[in-house]
């Protein structure tokens, strides 16, 4: 089960209201390689994992991804909450606004809604852990593109933190893959 802790994993500072930037950041809220995909992917893959290390890791990283999803939602919210209509009209956020107001919604930067088709759970731990490692690298790349287009120091700081977490997760998934491979080899030969 889960229990909510009333705090963010990382303090989110936003320096300037910027609806156009919010629309780009929302890529990581509901995009293919975003935090929602990551969380649902890892938590869904746990049942078919053969080792306790992999079960624990998918549980803990999957849970951390939900905390990252909350960070992204907070960045988006803080970027738009004080925006007057004049500052929304004519920006890429306008299309979001006419459907969702200022509330975040899980779609990508171009408005494609989140779908379970973004993730997989193959019931094959080798395939799943490779997908997870690729997912972390794709998320890292997305954060790098976002950092490149972001000129808000507070938002940039949070994006750098999140980028760093992708690297740590990639490392841990690689270790889990090696452990799972050893376990599967052991079962085969003894």
């Amino acid at each position, binding site marked *: 089960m889960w229990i909510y802790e009333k705090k963010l994993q990382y*303090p989110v500072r936003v320096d300037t209201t910027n609806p156009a930037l919010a629309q780009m950041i929302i890529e990581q809220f509901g995009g293919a390689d975003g935090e929602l995909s990551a969380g649902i992917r890892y938590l869904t893959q746990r049942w078919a994992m053969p080792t306790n290390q992999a079960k624990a890791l998918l549980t803990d990283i999957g849970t951390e991804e939900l905390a990252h999803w909350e960070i992204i939602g907070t960045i988006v919210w803080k970027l738009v909450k004080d925006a007057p209509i004049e500052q929304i009209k004519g920006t890429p956020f306008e299309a979001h606004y006419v459907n969702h107001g200022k509330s975040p919604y899980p779609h990508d930067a171009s408005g494609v809604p989140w779908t379970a088709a973004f993730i997989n759970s193959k019931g094959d731990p080798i395939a799943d852990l490779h997908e997870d490692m690729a997912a972390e690298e794709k998320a890292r790349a997305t954060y790098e593109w976002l950092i490149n287009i972001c000129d808000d120091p507070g938002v940039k700081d949070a994006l750098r933190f999140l980028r760093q977490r992708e690297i740590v997760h990639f490392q841990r998934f690689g270790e889990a893959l090696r452990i799972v491979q050893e376990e599967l080899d052991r079962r085969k030969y003894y």
Partner: protein
Amino acid sequence: MDREQKMLLKEIMDYSFALVETALYLDTHPYDEEALKLHNGFSQKYSQLVSLYQAKYGPLKNNQMSGCPWAYINGPWPWEIDFDL
């Protein structure tokens, strides 16, 4: 949220994050005694700070005790906090 509450919350956030990091590492290195020592130290400090916060400002989790009225609902909620001190 006054400065004192914010500083205590940020300290809890620091330890909480450190615990996530040591936990992930331990998930794939369960026999690493050095990492376990680090994790257990963070955990002890985290529990102390959470108890202190709960007594002063109310629950961070809905399974903690509260005075009347139920203080869990009090704002600001995490996404509303201005983290500039």
